[in-house]
């Protein structure tokens, strides 16, 4: 309360002048984080910490999701919003996880003659015009009374943390980059808001802050990481970071922790005994849009 508006403005000026986080010296990084801690603590009325734990040696984060077990409850999406300080509210809701609902289609006896030429028309096919569980008709705005809904399958998506991320390639200022332990992160203070990364992402995994995020003071999660869940500003892009603030401290991401069916698994891909490594070795595993050569570290599997 003793801080005047001038002091606040000064701190934001210093923030504005700071360089790209990756290129800062350790002292500069510490200064930048301390500056943010002061500002966030004042803005949200609680002690906010901005962590800077770097990537750990010998760790490559990977994720696996059992699509047979997902029931579409979307607790993961909600937990993610709360953990990662996303914007809420009707007019500016940001969710990093989207759970796609897919109708189970079927081939039916009645349609046997559909698509056959009448007179001298063109033959286009038979039963083929109702989709049978395809990703690209994905519906993610559903309000069921109970889950899972009958005849529905679910496919949660979020950032795939590609090994060869198209978003990183197109960024004109290198504000988004792949960390050594796997996650693709954004230096929110360096982002110029051009949205090229959003165009380039084949998984629709990035969100833009069209105005200042609506983050209620009381709901703000004060345990943050500079590259992860710290509050964002208007005009920048944000995305899932595998809960970098948790996972670099040996915890699970919030979505893994909250999943009621245990469909979500997380671990170190370099450790052959980790849960994800075992799944990749033993289960039927696939990655989304493999033809694009993005090599996601997000694996879908089924029992």
């Amino acid at each position, binding site marked *: 309360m003793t801080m005047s508006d001038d002091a606040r403005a000064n701190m934001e000026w210093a923030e*504005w002048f700071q360089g*790209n986080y990756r*290129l800062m010296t350790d002292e500069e990084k510490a200064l930048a984080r301390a500056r943010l801690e002061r500002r966030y603590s004042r803005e949200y009325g609680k002690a906010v910490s901005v962590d800077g734990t770097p990537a750990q040696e010998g760790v490559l984060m990977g994720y696996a999701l059992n699509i047979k077990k997902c029931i579409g409850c979307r607790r993961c999406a909600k937990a993610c919003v709360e953990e990662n300080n996303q914007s809420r509210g009707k007019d*500016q809701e*940001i969710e990093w996880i*989207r759970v*796609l609902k897919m109708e189970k289609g079927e081939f039916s006896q009645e349609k046997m003659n559909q698509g056959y030429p009448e007179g001298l028309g063109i033959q286009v096919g038979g039963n083929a015009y109702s989709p049978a569980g395809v*990703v*690209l*008709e*994905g519906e*993610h705005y559903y309000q069921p009374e109970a889950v899972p809904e009958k005849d529905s399958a679910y496919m949660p*998506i979020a950032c795939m943390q590609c090994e060869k991320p*198209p978003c990183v*390639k*197109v*960024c*004109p*200022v*290198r*504000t988004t980059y792949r960390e050594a332990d796997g996650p693709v992160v954004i230096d929110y203070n*360096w*982002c*110029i*808001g*051009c*949205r*090229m990364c*959003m*165009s*380039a*992402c*084949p*998984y*629709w995994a990035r*969100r*833009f*802050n*069209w*105005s*200042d995020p609506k983050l209620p003071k009381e709901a703000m999660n004060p345990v943050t990481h500079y590259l992860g869940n710290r509050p964002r500003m*208007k*005009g*920048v*892009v944000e995305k899932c970071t595998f809960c970098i603030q948790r996972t670099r401290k040996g915890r699970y991401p919030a979505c893994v922790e909250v999943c009621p069916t245990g469909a979500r698994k997380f671990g170190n891909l370099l450790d052959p005994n980790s849960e994800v490594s075992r799944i990749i070795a033993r289960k039927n595993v696939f990655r989304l849009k493999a033809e*694009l050569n993005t090599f996601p570290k997000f694996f879908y599997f089924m029992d």
Partner: protein
Amino acid sequence: MDKLKRFAIDYVTYVVKGSPAFYAWVAFLGLLILGLLYGTYLHTADGLRYTGLTDQVHDGLYLANFVFLVGIAAGAVTIVFPAYVYHHKGLHAVAVLGEMLAISAVLMCILFIVSHMGRPDRLWHMLPVIGIYNLPNSMLAWDTLVLIGYLFLNLIGGFYFLYKKYTGQPLNNKFYMPLIYVSIVWALSIHTVTAFLLNTMPSRPMWHHSMMPIRFILTAFAAGPSLIVLIFLIVRARTRLWIDNSAINQLATIITYCLGLSLFLSLSEVVTELYANTEHALGLQYLMFGMHGFNDLVPWFWGSLAASLGAFVILLTPGLRRDYRWLPIACSLAFAGIWVEKGMGLLVPGFIPTPIGEFSQYFPTTLEIVVTLGNWALGFLILTILLKGAIGILLGDIAYATSMQDRVTASDTGVSPTPELT
């Protein structure tokens, strides 16, 4: 140095003086620019939430106009190329006007990019040395590079020519001609790189065509000269500068070829996509026929096609092409058709459906339209200033010799001369 100072002073004095019609035009543009200032204030203070953009369709009117105007800038080369490579006399006399158009078009591109940016206050992050420039990876970085390069090439080339004309000295061709040749190739590069900006992303199948760069060049070489023909006809009617019929006819021929070829490429694209009709054709299908009840873009697509076809038919008829009552109609149609094709016909449907198959609609808000009009107005103000000065020099109204004379007379009589203006 004194000459350079006189050049600047004479140029500005000539440009600011004009007829009531000139002032009315400037005031009209000023009014639109006020809208731009207001919109920019809102964008800066509150972010981009006043736009119709969403996480689904996150690039809209601003980026569409940017893409189109890069084409206009590149299209200016349709004057310079015949003038200097084929020594076309009519165009050679007015080639500098093309360079002036290129300068203002590139400046408009920059204005639109600034409006499009979420954080334009951080643009310095792109500057070499103090920021980071993601070369050679980022197409946007390349695009910025070629655009700024083109701006400087035209500024240097154009004003060098005007300055030499002003002082009555001959051009140093060893300096000037390489500049011209480089700028011709560079003009091709700016729209090519802009096409690369979009078509290098397999995440957006509608754009992922190797045909896009050549189609961009062809539409640019139709829309650019269309605007130039319109400007030339206005210049002929409103100033003492006579632009030869041969120049206008040459441009009309270029528009005819390029428009025809671009229509052919559109047809190829439609056939390629719709015959196989894979999931990747959804964007084009949405654009042409609408899908899932969303059909906002359908009239734009067919309207644009009708305009381009109409223009092509007029231009293809020799009698109509050489008739200067029909030619402006064809040029306006081509210009409008390509503007829609680049915006509503290319940029927006590229985002629909999203990579996960979601359909949504985009329509610009009033504020977006106000800002867009303001950016165009500011661009046209720059164009007016540049063209008026250039025409003054071509006519000999601004010249170092008369300026010196006038200075003597002015100090004698105390009356400053007012050159006759439009």
